């Protein structure tokens, strides 16, 4: 069985590595993305200010205050704990609790300094209690990089496997394999391993490039992050295999894969946090494995979380893998009916 898996794995790797155009695109596209981000973000962070309105208390007193009329400020309702963490890490400039008449600021944050000046200028003397919240800054690019790594894994695993399986089925290569002792589970294992190797290689390359070019934050264990990347890749490949289990048209496969990738890209927190989004959107985002992969990756990279801390996310990724591999193996067809 192992020999059959490695026979298919080896042939698939050779096919991929010699297809220079595809290989080049798979490596070059993410690197170009990183280079673009380096150009955009290396000169400084965003210019817009972000202020958390600590929920519940904010609901009653906030609407009337003139500070909320200030232009170029984003006011985001948020839970107290999360708001204070973000202020400490420079992800927010200020957190205000209208009910308690207090605000939190990181004294080292330039954005916080300006936001505080504007708050005071639009408030009465003695209206606010000032509370410090200290911590190292987390820039947007620090926050974004795990999203980019995750997005690259998602596209590579879903499209890279889904399209290949459909193409093999359409051109009759799978039919030829069916006449051999190879079993579906062995074929699927070979596809997972092949794509996993590529996804991890490109992710390591990207991670290295971002560390080099952008000096991104890495507080936790590289090994834990590696494990998250491996489980996320396997989980996403298994979704790709399940979606391609019976499809015989590349157009349909593309549509199905887009149906999964676009919601994941928008709702899994690749580009922006869903902290300010409606509750139902946040709950919906939890059905996507990418959400859990990014939560784990950010906890490790930004807050130094250990394996034990991200265990729930790892278990979800492993569970997703088991579910979709079972679906894929059950539904798999070597050829069209």
């Amino acid at each position, binding site marked *: 069985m192992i020999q059959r898996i490695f026979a298919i794995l080896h042939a698939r790797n050779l096919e991929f590595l010699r297809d220079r155009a595809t290989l080049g695109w798979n490596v070059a596209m993410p690197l170009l993305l990183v280079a673009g981000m380096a150009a955009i973000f290396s000169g400084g962070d965003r210019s817009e200010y972000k202020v958390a309105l600590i929920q519940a208390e904010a609901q009653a007193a906030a609407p009337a205050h003139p500070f909320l009329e200030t232009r170029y400020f984003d006011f985001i309702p948020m839970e107290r704990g999360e708001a204070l963490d973000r202020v400490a890490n420079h992800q927010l400039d200020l957190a205000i609790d209208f009910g308690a008449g207090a605000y939190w600021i990181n004294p080292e944050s330039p954005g916080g300094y300006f936001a505080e000046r504007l708050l005071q200028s639009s408030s009465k003397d003695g209206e606010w209690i000032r509370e410090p919240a200290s911590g190292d800054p987390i820039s947007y690019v620090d926050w974004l990089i795990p999203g980019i790594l995750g997005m690259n894994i998602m596209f590579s695993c879903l499209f890279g496997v889904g399209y290949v399986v459909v193409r093999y089925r359409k051109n009759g290569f799978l039919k030829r394999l*069916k006449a051999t002792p190879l079993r579906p589970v062995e074929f699927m294992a070979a596809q997972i391993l092949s794509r996993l190797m590529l996804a991890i290689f490109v992710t390591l390359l990207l991670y290295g490039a971002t560390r080099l070019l952008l000096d991104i934050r890495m507080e936790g264990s590289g090994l834990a992050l590696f494990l998250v990347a491996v489980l996320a890749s396997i989980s996403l490949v298994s979704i790709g295999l399940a979606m391609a289990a019976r499809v015989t048209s590349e157009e349909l496969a593309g549509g199905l894969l887009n149906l999964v990738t676009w919601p994941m890209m928008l709702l899994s927190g690749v580009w922006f946090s869903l902290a300010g989004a409606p509750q139902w959107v946040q709950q919906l985002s939890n059905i996507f494995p990418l959400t859990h992969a990014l939560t784990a990756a950010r906890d490790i990279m930004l807050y130094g979380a250990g394996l034990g801390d991200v265990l729930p996310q790892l278990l979800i990724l492993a569970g997703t893998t088991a579910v979709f591999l079972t679906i894929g193996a059950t539904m798999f067809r070597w050829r069209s009916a």
Partner: protein
Amino acid sequence: MAAAKPAPILAVRDLVKNYGPVRAVRGISFDVRRDCCFGLLGPNGAGKTTTVEIIEGVTPATSGEVLYQGKPAGAAFRQDAGVQFQTAALQDFITVRETLEMFHRLYRHRADLGQVISDCALDKLEKRDNRKLSGGQRQRLLLGIALVNDPKILFLDEPTTGMDPQARRNFWELVERIRARGKTIVLTTHYMEEAQTLCDEIVIMNEGEIITQGAPEQLLKAHYKAIILELPESDLAEMPPEFPFPSYRRNGLVEIHADDANEAITRLSRAGAPLGRLNIRPYRLEDLFLDLTGKELRP
């Protein structure tokens, strides 16, 4: 006491395949003897490829069964069978040798790869990308893939379709060499010359049914007592009056099917027909095929 008839290596029983309302295979049964070259013949759409794909295990039957060495064909059959499909895609960017190596590793019992490469005349193509093979070279590679497990039974589905005459002859020689090593071969073809050259036994299918089966020579003897006289149409514009043998005009020739050649020649001579270009030949498998399956074009 008569010797017991040896058990067939392959037995097909009451095989049916329906595609919706279309009955592609209609309850056919036949045996394939060990070490024989068995031909499955029929016009396009006769159901022969469907039949052979059911036997190979790549298409499920609607009903009926396939027995390999007396047991339902399953994992052991897949280890022992070599299959050459009529068309099969191969992976791009992979060389001939790498392709053979990949399939080679899928089996427990394996042939010597060097021997397979040599048998299929792939020695000079080992490092060539699959995409850069000609039609004949590609068919030889597909045959090589079918031989990597040193199969006990080899399926060849229209293996010479699209080959030029020289490549086809070379392919036949190759199949003869393989057969000489005691392999059982199941050949699907619509080239009658190919079947007559290679097959010990044939089945002719039409519209999903078997219409005749047996050894080619026996079938010809059973169906025809006559021989065929051929004359160019230009030498025989009209048949002599009261000519007692049936005749057909086909491809610029007049074919006279006569059970008494002397009588036919005498009558033609008396009618003044020039006989310098007269050709006398026995019935061929193609004649039987056309007589049994019809001469008109299929829709």
